[in-house]
């Protein structure tokens, strides 16, 4: 059974009487343990696709099965739980809570999962240590570099041991050196058996993946394995 099965996914936006077709029938399957890059020009629908895969958005039509469960059948609470347990999201702009320390940020998914206070502290500290930030746990986002912030975001995404890590342009706001650090981290995660989907428009970044899906005008233009 595939981890992700997308069948004829469409996503339309109504914009003042005009309909924007962001996705026009995307069908993809992704297996457990894959490392996939999604590429395409600006406005082609990459983020829209990622948001649907990450259960942040729902398709206008088509069906999406995650882990064998039909996402359309789920209510808001089920979706919140799926996002909490099954999916880790890494954003281009990090999206950390600015008033909270690195540790608090990483603890948050555990809080929502109902893990008790001692246990979640331990798990969150370990997750920060895994991304090389053991000595920055009490820092707030504005006291850290971009690379460090993105590593906090990765630690937060992974802290609940999700089946899927989604990253939408994770290196977009980083210089190439810190970008490399994040990609090295992804590589290590993949080696450990994690499933990763990364949106990027840099060939550099995409080459780290094992499979590249190219999107154009809301359709899959090509889907190839990197050799």
């Amino acid at each position, binding site marked *: 059974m595939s981890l992700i099965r997308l069948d004829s996914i469409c996503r339309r936006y109504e914009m003042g009487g005009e309909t924007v077709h962001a996705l026009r029938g995307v069908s993809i399957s992704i297996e457990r343990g894959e490392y996939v890059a999604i590429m395409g020009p600006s406005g082609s629908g990459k983020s829209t696709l990622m*948001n649907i895969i*990450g259960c*942040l*958005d729902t398709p206008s039509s088509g069906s999406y099965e995650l882990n064998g469960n039909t996402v359309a059948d789920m209510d*808001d*609470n089920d979706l*919140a*739980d799926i*996002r*909490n*347990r099954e999916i880790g*999201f890494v*954003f281009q*702009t990090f*999206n*950390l*809570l600015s*008033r*909270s320390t690195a540790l608090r940020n990483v603890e*948050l*998914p555990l*809080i*929502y*999962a*109902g893990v008790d206070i001692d246990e979640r502290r331990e798990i969150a500290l370990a997750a920060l240590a895994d991304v090389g930030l053991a000595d920055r746990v009490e820092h707030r986002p504005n006291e850290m570099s971009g690379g460090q912030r993105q590593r906090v975001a990765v630690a*937060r995404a992974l802290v*609940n041991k999700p089946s899927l890590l989604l990253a939408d342009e994770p290196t977009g706001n980083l210089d190439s050196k810190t970008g490399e650090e994040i990609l090295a981290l992804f590589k290590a995660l993949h080696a450990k058996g994690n499933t990763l989907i990364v949106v990027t428009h840099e060939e550099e970044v995409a080459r780290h993946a094992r499979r590249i899906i190219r999107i154009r005008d809301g359709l899959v233009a090509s889907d190839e394995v990197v050799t």
Partner: protein
Amino acid sequence: MNIGSEISEGLRISWEALRGNLMRSVLTTVGIVIGIVTVTLMATALEYLNTAFRDAISFLGTDVLYVDRNEWFIDNNNKFDRMQRREKITMAQVRAVEEGLSGVSGVAPSVMQGVEGLRYGDRSTGGVLMIGTNEQFIITGGASLASGRFMTKAEAAANRDLCIIGADIADKLFEKEEPLGKRITVADQRLEVIGIFEKRGSVLGGMSLDNQIVIPIQKMNRGFKWDPSCVIQIKVGDTARIPAVRDELRGLMRKIRRLPPGREDDFAINQSEALVSQFGKVSAIIAAAGFFITGLSLFVGGIGIMNIMFVSVAERTQEIGVRKAIGARNRTVLLQFLIEAAAICLLGGIIAIGITRGLVEVARVYLPKVAMSWSVVVLALTVAVGTGLISGFLPAWRAARMRPVDALRKD
């Protein structure tokens, strides 16, 4: 996520938010503070009035019936005129009641007259209430003696030249001298002081209960040539028997005054309960007016909170998106903002209680018995939190219902 950790998490987030916007939060609470100050002042004032009133009328005794020509409360002029034409209650009628009524603690007739010019030696005092009564008054009147003794049955019947005086009169006429056994002069009559009442204070800050002089009732009628209608005071002794005694008394009075069946009573049986219920009506009106004003200021305050919460939700849309993206349920987000609104209002409530405390301290200079009770504090905090929850609901609901993508996209 269980409800306990949701609440502690919500408290923590709202604490961070409050601290982050301390000035704004404090300013937002102004409306609530005004509302809660009104609530607490209102409640404190009403509580004070109630106890002050009950203290004040306690001199009437809760189990004492007053048979009088007039009713204490007269709702129209016609009735007043009619009552003025009623036949007096005479001493003969008092005696008939004494004989006819069984199983009560005491029956005392009383007539009252304001007198000026009480003298002893070269000292004098005025504005005194003179009460003519008999030996039973010590039972019905609710006063006790500080020194000396009350008149005996024989003395009352023989209408002796004696008096029992209130504490203020004793102070004014005698200063350091011992009043017992001395003779004071009241309008040509010389009366021996045989007892002094315990100090009792005044009724609602007005009429002093210590500026009274009690003499045998016949002295009043004959000595002072003044013969008004009597009021018969009846101490029932057992609150449960009041209604029965009332009925018996009414039948007795009708018989004594020879009222044919069908004719309305030409006397009234008054009771302190009548005052209490009259006061209850007044305090209900005060409360209604007060709570209307309070409600209005809380409403305005609540609108302010709602407004600031909408701003807060808008400012933190991104944060809401992030929280939802990592697994916050709608309920969690709802609770987070509800708690934040409640916390702002709680802050306002605490500030308001502080202000009210200060005002009560000031009021204490004039009214020493005023105090803010714990129940008022609890009421104030409950109202504050309630206002927060109500006015925070719409913004919190909006936050809870946001779709994660839409919330995240906003910057």
